[in-house]
């Protein structure tokens, strides 16, 4: 009997402990979609969502009104997940053939820039004046949106940059590089640091709203928080055992979403959630096949899911 009571007490404390840090996914807004999305992102501070569908058309939704616009901009080829970015005025999309297209919220194409490599990632600065471009074989590049010209290219020992982000204040660029380093540049292209990462490649980096903290994740399957000023690792989650392709940090820093891929198929295998007060990288109880994007607004983390071919939902992760 004593053993049973002890076990019961342990079970209750275990359930309470897990319930106290359990996360919920709450529907926020439903959006009408005229096509099946391939990939979608949250724009600016969460005012809009932009997406690329399976026939390479661009969609834009206003989250406050649910208003939807469809832009047929004649993309030359498929778009890699990650090669779509937006702010409050500009949408940037890059193709596997190396074409970067910049359009405004009316769907008017402002720039088309042809690169010679597959575009694998894009990130706009706040205000949309600068664009960080990742490609399949080269280090990060920073482009001036107004002129459509390249300001500078970064450096690596031998590899391409997988994911790059521009700091909210527009003064720094952070790159997750295939040679396993995380690099920081100032906005003029001067290398500030190259911080050694894990033994396997980092695939993505995300910057907190205050610009002080980076979340970095990749083939090791864990998420690191790093000091953005030095690159020093502050905290590290457990590994999920599979590569993490995309990572996004909440404005409040303490929580992170991660798109986990199956290491064999490289298809979505889970959505990781990490509360940095703990070490465990948990998985949300959502079907990863329905997740087409992740992002943040002022309040926290958001998931974008394809409910049906005609419906998207934006959900808050708490």
């Amino acid at each position, binding site marked *: 009997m004593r053993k049973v009571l002890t076990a019961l007490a342990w079970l209750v404390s275990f359930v309470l402990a897990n319930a106290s840090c359990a996360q919920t996914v709450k529907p926020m807004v439903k959006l009408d979609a005229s096509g099946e999305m391939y990939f979608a992102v949250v724009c600016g501070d969460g005012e809009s969502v932009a997406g690329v569908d399976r026939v390479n058309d661009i969609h834009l939704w206003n989250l406050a009104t649910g208003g939807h616009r469809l832009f047929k901009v004649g993309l030359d080829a498929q778009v890699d997940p990650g090669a779509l970015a937006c702010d409050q005025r500009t949408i940037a999309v890059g193709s596997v053939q190396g074409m970067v297209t910049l359009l405004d919220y009316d769907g008017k194409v402002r720039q088309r820039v042809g690169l010679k490599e597959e575009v694998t990632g894009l990130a706009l600065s706040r205000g949309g004046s600068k664009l960080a471009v990742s490609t399949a074989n080269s280090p990060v590049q920073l482009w001036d949106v107004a002129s459509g010209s390249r300001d500078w290219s970064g450096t690596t020992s*031998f590899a391409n940059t997988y994911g790059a982000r521009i700091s909210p204040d527009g003064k720094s660029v952070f790159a997750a590089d295939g040679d396993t380093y995380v690099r920081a540049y100032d906005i003029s292209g001067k290398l500030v640091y190259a911080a050694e990462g894990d033994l396997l490649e980092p695939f993505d980096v995300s910057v907190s709203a205050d610009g002080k903290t980076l979340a970095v994740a990749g083939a090791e399957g864990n998420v690191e928080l790093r000091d953005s000023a030095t690159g020093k690792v502050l905290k590290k989650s457990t590994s999920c055992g599979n590569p993490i392709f995309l990572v996004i940090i909440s404005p409040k820093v303490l929580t992170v979403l991660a798109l986990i891929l199956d290491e064999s198929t490289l298809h979505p295998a889970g959505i990781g959630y990490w509360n940095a007060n703990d070490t465990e990288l948990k998985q949300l109880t959502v079907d990863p096949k329905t997740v087409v994007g992740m992002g943040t607004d002022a309040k926290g983390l958001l998931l974008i899911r394809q409910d049906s071919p005609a419906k998207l939902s934006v959900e808050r992760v708490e």
Partner: protein
Amino acid sequence: MELSRRDLFSRCVALGVVKLGAGLTVATAFDSWLRAETVPRPATPIDQLGPFYKRGTPESPGHSAVLRAQGDPGLQLAVAGTVYNTRGEVLPGAKIDVWQTNHQGRYDITGYRYRAMLRAGMKGEYDFQSVVPGHYPARKCQHIHFLVQAEGHKPLVTQMYFASDPIFKGDPAKNMNDDCPSVELVRPILLSDQATTMGANATFELVLESQ
């Protein structure tokens, strides 16, 4: 002891069987001779690094490595080649990282199985013993990753493919696909004729561009 070509040339000059014209030194004459013999080569096409490159692969002694362990399943594979620059000069000491899946298409993430780091020999030569890598769902083609680095040259990140891969239907030139960027990276294989120890042999020359 086997003399190097440079030593042999020096000896020939010393013995008078090779005479140098006015203004030539032994060193400049030898270098000019070698340059005249070299054939410019196109740079090896680049390919994607990853995923699953891993830093810190232990260095194998010399220009040879053995990636497979005794008893490993899979068709045995021997890969050999030479590291050149685009002028056709060999690059002794070039650092070569290779990594691949096992025969079932699995990378070793936690350790360094089927990964090696070796240095090209004095004639730019390298070789390694492995197994033919397996297919895995994210990639259509069997492949081996290479990262080659030599002083004064751009690092080369590339992959080698196999003409025997069913994806090419026996004719890589006609049946290329988007998983392989260049037919030049697709290498024929030669099967050894010993039924009991049959293995595949392939050559893969690695040509780096100057910085």
